[in-house]
């Protein structure tokens, strides 16, 4: 499986309150949440994001609240993958559980620029920045998590195991 898209680039400690502010958590509808995704850190995000686009950030992406609404909003906005140096642990679990592809890769997180066109090969873990020509090797998932992802999320994995 591959994904290709343009990059939205952010820094360290992008928290779940800026990914989806709590004032919108009176809804749990993915489409509605997506209309406010990243609003408090990048108000243009929802107008510019296209299906397949990629978020790249540095340290501790998704820190803060356990709200699954955060990866849900990102996924529903069309983003195909989040690449970061590191992820906050609850966000990491939630992304796998709902089937939002994420990848830890410090080199890619620090080298890729906003607006670059990036291709990700999920099978090999290879991240290619087509704009600069650089390529990076992402951290592969442990086999156990790969099974959850292959089942398209935790609930399917439980039903089938």
């Amino acid at each position: 499986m591959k994904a290709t898209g343009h990059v939205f680039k952010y820094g360290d400690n992008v928290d779940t309150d800026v990914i989806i502010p709590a004032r919108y958590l009176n809804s749990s509808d993915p489409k509605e949440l997506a209309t406010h995704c990243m609003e408090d850190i990048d108000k243009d995000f929802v107008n510019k994001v296209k299906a397949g686009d990629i978020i790249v950030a540095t340290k501790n992406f998704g820190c803060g609240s356990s709200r699954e609404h955060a990866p849900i909003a990102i996924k529903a906005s069309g983003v195909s993958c989040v690449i970061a140096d590191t992820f906050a642990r609850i966000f990491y679990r939630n992304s796998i559980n709902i089937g939002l592809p994420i990848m830890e890769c410090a080199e890619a997180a620090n080298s890729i620029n906003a607006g670059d066109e990036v291709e990700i090969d999920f099978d090999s873990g290879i991240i290619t920045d087509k704009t600069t020509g650089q390529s990076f090797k992402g951290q592969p998932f442990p086999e156990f998590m790969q099974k959850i992802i292959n089942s398209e999320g935790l609930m399917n994995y439980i039903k089938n195991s």
Partner: protein
Amino acid sequence: MGMTMTQKILAAHAGLESVTAGQLIMADLDLVLGNDITSPVAIKEMEKNKLDSVFDKDKIALVPDHFVPNKDIKSAEHCKCVREFALKNEITNYFEVGEMGIEHALLPEKGLTVAGDVIIGADSHTCTYGALGAFSTGVGSTDMAAGMATGKTWFKVPSAIKFNIVGKPSKWVSGKDVILHIIGMIGVDGALYKSMEFCGEGLKNLTMDDRFTIANMAIEAGAKNGIFPVDELTEAYLKEHAKRPYKVYEADADAEYDEEYTIDLSTLKSTVAFPHLPENTKTVDEIGEPVKIDQVVIGSCTNGRIDDLRIAAKVLSGRHVKKGIRLIVIPATQSIYLQAMEEGLLKTFIEAGGVVSTPTCGPCLGGYMGVLAEGERCVSTTNRNFVGRMGHITSEIYLASPAVAAESAVKGFIAAPEE
């Protein structure tokens, strides 16, 4: 090789003799928790996947606390969804408005979280119960759904950082100052994926409420959990509250830690986290130009317990908040509310010019009951000061102890009570 306290609890719940850091395990759960924001997503996941029963109706806790009493129609719909699910599944520990409280203050008080437990909750501050010697951690709604259906969840066994606590804190220094100091030292990802294990002779000088505050904010350092050994204070608390038997686990003498720190409580000062990260800490005496404020919030799962209200009342007694400052006090549970009333603390708050609210998470996450306008500043005893957390994206949150919050309300700028 020895195990940490966390590893011992996880091994026992996975039916294993021993575990090591990095190992993936499947563990039995003693309690699965959700609130009015996270539970509806979990309930929908269960329905979508045709999982129509829960593993144990006594081992699930549903606590509408974030936007209750219902703040708007959509919130009311979420609460209705949780209420109907609780009724249908005969969930023993569902708490309606009149008997509720902020989940992480309520569950220990009700004796539903005890030493030796493995607990997951769809709320990041579920790590609070580590104060009682339990392994507890925040998860998302899908993990909550799977936990409710199966009574099990997977964990990657964490490594740990050890905090050796020594000394005795000075008069106005409390658990909040201890954890803000630690987060300032190690950073908001300083304990990412790890346990924070607290130990040492200084623990006897920290009350249970101090320990709840410290364990509560382990997540703000990125930790999977924070945990305290069970001592006489814990045993006394559990004897008073616990609804079921508890089990005491101790770290092995030869347990391995990634890092070790010594925290001398006697050297700590009143500490404040400046916008927009909990790691941006300064002691109050390091603040140069006075930071003028508009609002003060005393409450939340971090600092809405009886000790916190007693400290705030002590500072406010016989004084008045500065004109133009809004003081909002929120006892964390109905029982704390009642106790504060009986002790005359609410009278002190109201006479000082504050308002007292029914228990709710409300303002902590910018929900309601104290949302900030453009450019406003708030000193808050809550746990996060992210951009826009309590309202407008240009508003600012300064995290502090109840003592500092109360003194700041009187002064109109960030200040600590005098010795």
